[in-house]
Every structure is written in structure tokens, then in C-alpha cells.
């Protein structure tokens, strides 16, 4: 079964050292993803979502305390590769990323066509004309007029820049693309356009996606699977139909209740308090302090309970789920 997964992450940890102590931004994350599926990682800010993306793609800052665990891309174990091997074999070849605020991450003094062609030249060593041809093809694919190739980022609207950033991630045809908040700075109509584009790419190019977002409403446009992250850990993984109707973890339920809806006028709820500091996360269940269903056992670290492909990390499911 494991061979058919596109990515398997086992006990991934990424801690940063700071003067105040180690920040446990990613602390023991496990999950895997089947090919041509999209997983959405949701959670509040400061739960380690972006750090998870960076840990998977090994785009690390200098102040690393601990970086451990296993990441398999199909059969390739990537954590044991050296940085140079990783760059040559994995990054932008098997896996690429559309960074947060991608529209502002373009190089302002480089024509967008050159920027999209660059990964082809760097990673596959093709000559410039071939790379530009490929970039032009990619522009068509993401719905940017081909004559925009010679424009600079400031000449493009926000939505167009976002498309260019997506083209840049897709140009080397990786199997897995990580999208970090791809639409958070965009208008509703542009958001809808970008999600239409991602859906089309998912079917046409059979790409898999890890989508990181705090916007649960728009995430439902792409999600096959939802993973909920809280305080550096994943607390629930559920198939999306299941998640959007009856989320299992109390944190997931609270998150869903705080989403404003256009088509039903339920009373909105919010989560009192804020996520714990990742320097000294609470022992036991990390959500316990904010949890309405807290009971005695929550002082101990909850195990993972499986429900088929889904799982949840919460003591409430002790009698129902199968302990992993």
C-alpha cells in the first residue's frame, strides 16, 4: 500500500532555536497522500502550517534546533539526502512550492517569462529558447496571455501575478505542489478563478497538492482530504465530505463553527484564547486548555485513533476508534 502514496511523512520535527528557547514549530507530524489528491492543512496562524511546508521542501532558515523524521516521495527517502543531492533530485523536480504572498515573491527587476523559464534552465539544463517555449506553454496553461512573457511583475494585476507564481511551480512538471495561502490576498472573483485553475490542473496534469490555508471556506474548493494542525501537530485527518459535515476533533468542530457562511445564518462561534506558545507547549493534549469537552484524561498525551483512512488524536474517541 505504501508504494502507491506520493508522499509519506513520518514523525517530522522542525524546531528553531531562539534566545528564549526552542520553538517546536513542527513537532511529530505524520501523514501520507495518495497521487492526484489534494490535502488541505488548516489551522490558526502560529500553528506551524508554513513551517511544515518549509520542512517538507527543506527551505530552512539558519536557526535550526532539530530537524528530524522521515519524508518519502514515493520510494525516495529525502531526509538522508545531502543539500546538493536534494536540490538536484527533489526540489522543483519532484516537488515545488507556491510561497505565501506569491504575488509579492516575484523578482521585481526580472521579466516574468524569464522567471518562469529559470527553473527549467537551472534544474534540467535546457537552453534558453527551449525554456522560454516551455514557459509560454505554461502561461497558456494557467491563463496568462503569452505576450505577458516580456512584462515585469509590476505591470501585472494581483491575480495575474499569482498565476505566474503557479506557472513557475508547475513548469518542471513536479508530481507534488505545495501551495501556501495561494489566494489570501486576492478578491473573491480572482480567488474563484485561481481555484478553477487549480482544479483544472489537478485533472489535466494529475498533480497532487498540499494546500496550506486558514480559510476553510475556499479550501473546500480543492480538498480531497483535510488535515487539521494545532500547535505543531496534526490532530485530525479526515476525508473532506466527512470533515465538512461532522469533524471529529473538538478543535476542528470549533474551527468549522467560526466560519461565516453565506447560505445559512447560524450563530457564529469563536475559540476563546489563542494557540499555546510553541516554546513550552502544554503537556498532554495541547488543545485541552481551550477545549469545551476537556476531561481528566486530557492531561496525558492522546494517542491516535484510526477510523479507516481517517484518524483523530483525541481521548474522546478511545472507545470508538482503533488505536494506532
Amino acid at each position: 500500500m505504501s508504494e502507491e502514496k506520493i508522499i509519506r511523512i513520518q514523525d517530522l520535527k522542525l524546531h528553531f532555536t531562539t534566545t528564549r528557547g526552542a520553538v517546536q514549530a513542527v513537532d511529530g507530524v505524520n501523514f501520507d497522500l495518495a497521487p492526484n489528491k489534494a490535502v488541505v492543512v488548516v489551522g490558526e496562524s502560529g500553528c506551524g502550517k508554513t513551517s511544515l511546508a518549509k520542512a517538507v521542501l527543506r527551505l530552512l532558515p539558519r536557526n535550526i534546533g532539530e530537524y528530524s523524521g522521515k519524508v518519502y516521495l514515493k520510494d525516495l527517502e529525502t531526509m538522508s539526502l545531502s543539500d546538493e543531492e536534494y536540490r538536484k533530485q527533489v526540489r522543483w523536480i519532484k516537488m515545488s512550492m507556491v510561497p505565501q504572498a506569491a504575488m509579492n515573491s516575484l523578482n521585481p527587476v526580472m521579466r516574468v517569462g524569464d522567471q518562469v523559464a529559470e527553473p527549467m534552465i537551472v534544474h534540467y539544463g535546457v537552453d534558453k529558447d527551449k525554456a522560454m517555449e516551455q514557459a509560454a506553454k505554461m502561461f497558456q496553461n494557467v491563463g496568462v496571455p503569452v505576450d505577458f512573457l516580456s512584462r515585469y511583475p509590476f505591470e501585472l494585476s494581483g491575480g495575474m501575478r499569482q498565476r505566474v507564481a503557479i506557472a513557475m511551480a508547475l513548469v518542471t512538471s513536479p508530481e507534488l505542489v505545495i501551495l501556501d495561502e495561494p489566494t489570501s490576498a486576492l478578491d473573491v472573483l480572482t480567488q474563484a478563478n485561481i481555484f478553477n485553475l487549480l482544479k483544472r490542473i489537478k485533472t489535466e496534469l494529475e498533480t497532487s497538492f498540499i494546500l496550506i490555508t486558514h480559510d476553510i471556506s475556499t479550501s473546500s474548493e480543492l480538498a480531497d482530504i483535510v488535515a487539521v494542525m494545532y500547535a505543531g501537530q496534526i490532530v485530525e485527518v479526515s476525508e473532506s465530505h466527512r470533515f465538512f459535515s461532522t469533524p471529529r476533533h473538538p478543535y476542528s468542530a470549533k474551527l468549522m463553527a467560526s466560519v461565516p457562511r453565506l447560505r445559512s445564518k447560524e450563530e457564529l462561534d469563536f475559540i476563546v484564547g489563542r494557540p499555546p506558545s510553541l516554546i513550552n507547549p502544554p503537556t498532554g493534549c495541547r488543545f485541552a486548555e481551550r477545549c469545551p469537552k476537556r476531561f481528566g484524561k486530557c492531561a496525558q498525551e492522546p494517542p491516535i485513533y484510526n477510523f479507516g483512512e481517517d484518524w483523530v488524536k483525541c481521548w474522546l474517541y478511545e472507545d470508538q476508534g482503533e488505536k494506532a
Partner: protein
Amino acid sequence: MTEEIMTKNAENSTEPILILKDLQVYFELKKFGFQHAGYVRAVDGVDMELRRGETIAIVGESGSGKTSLMRTILRVNNPTGGTISFEGQVINNLKSSELKAFRQKVGYVQQDPYGAMAPFMSIRSILEEPLKIAGIKDKEERSRRVHQVMEEVKMTPVDDFLAKFPHQLSGGQQQRVVIARAMILNPVLLVADEPVSMLDASVRVEILKLLRNLQESHNLAVIYITHDLATVRYFSEYIYVMYAGEIIEKANESDLINETAHPYTHALLAATSDPDPKNVDEFQDVPPGEPPSLVNPPAGCRFHPRCAQMIEGVCNVEVPPEFDLGKEHLVSCWLFKDYEVAKNRS
């Protein structure tokens, strides 16, 4: 505090406190720095009436002129044409001393709370600043007002926060301080520009509820600017939809959502997703193209190049007047030409 609320309520009348008539805001474009090269028509003929205790939400894409409209109401920009009256007085050409008095009655909540506060000032000095400018010299009075407003925005225990700096607070707390600063001079009108778009979903609701409570206890008139229709529903009596500098549809909240008239409003609603797993299987229906340039807006209806229901020879030639659909529901679209004309536009 309760006494204050009572007197506030007693002042309540049905007279609008803010009236915009045919408001225009144009920005001149210059070639070589001096030669006239046309205008950006950021706001073009906007009418509005706002009463105390009411909220009007202005919804539209970026570049539709929402922020220019708001900045003109705050008199940061000067109107090119039309009038703005506040409490019965036209404020188009206020002198700077009068402007100061006007601004003390208007609170402003910015989009990005962190960017809106000076990073080197403590929360106490951020909140005291407006009081100093308003000429409150008594230190104890200032301290009392700071404590009072911090309690109102539920930043308690107050003394724990006052010595802190903006970067030491979470996003939600920062936005509370910005709201406290807007409220500290007891304004009658609050202008909130995307107050929750930078915040987490879980905090968003908290801030919206706080704004709603403040509005009720102070009987505030609120202008809420946003592009997110889903949050509008929980917070506004009236919704104005803005496109390319014009208000194209206005209605109360439930009519706008349930009896939507303008094709552009339909498109906005269709593009707003609810968390529903069925979304995965369908493409969203999005009108092609992008909002037009405000330098040379399209002739006729400004939405016609993107509109699926465009009537050739009508929509692309003549500017649609405002048609009255009843129940204060107004729409500028030729599809409703059988209704009575509320206002002709040129």
C-alpha cells in the same frame, strides 16, 4: 458609562448623520509632472444616507473605489464634485480647525492593525495620543478614558497590556487596540476598512461581535468596507455593491442575498464559497476579464464587457439609471428597465 449610553440613545433621531450626494472623486493624471493627461474616476456619482445605529457595508473588488470613497468620507481626499454632509453640515471645504473637530467625531479602523500602530509607542501612548490632540490636558482623565475604552474592547486586565508594544500582541489583540483607539473620543461614525481580513477565522468572529456590541452600546453609525460577502451578513443592515467607481446595487442585507438583481452581484455571490465538500466537483462560474480601467471606463454600463446578459445596443451605449425595485432595493441595470426610475445618471 451607562449614563453616557443613555444620553447617547436619547439623542437618537431618524435624521441621517451622513449624506453623500452624487459624490465624485477624480485623481488627475499628469504627463511629465505637469501636463494634464486625464482623470482616474475613482468614485463616480455615489449617493448614501447613513443613520445612527445603522451599518452600511460597501462590497466590491479591489480597484472598485471602496477605499477612495472611504478616504473621501474621512476627508483625507478632497471630493471633486457632489457633497458630503455630516450632521447637517456640508464638509466639502472645511478649514483645518473645523476638520479637526469633525475627525474627533469619526473613528477609523484600519485593515492591517500592525501597520496602523507606531511600533515604537506603547499601547498606553497609542491610546493617549488622540486624547492629547483633542486637548485633554488632565493626566488622570486621560488615564481613566484609556482604562474605560480598554475594558470596552475586553482587553483585561488593562494594566497588563498598557506598557506593552504592538509587536507583543497577537493579531486579534492588535485589532482590539486599533478599535479602542478609534473609539476613545466617543465618535458617532465608525469607518472600518476590511477590519477582519488580516485575521484568522476564529478571531474574525470575535472582532465582528465586538464591533457589533460597540455599535449597539454607543448607537454608532458604521461604514464597513470589505470584499467578503460572507462576513457582511453578520454585521450589516444595508449592503452597497460597488463596481468601477459606482454603486450598482443597494438593498438591505437579506434582499441583496436572496433577491439579488445585478449580474455582478450574482457573480460575487456565486464566487463566495461555503465550506461544502461538493465544491470540489464543480467549477465556479466567474465572469471573464478584470475590472475596467477607471481612466477610460467602458461606455454605457461599466460591467457590460464582462456581463453574460449584455443587451447589444443598450448596455454598451447608454448608462443605466437607478431602478427602484421597492423596499429600498435599487439597481443600475437595464435588465430592470420596466421598473420605475429612481435616479437618472449620465
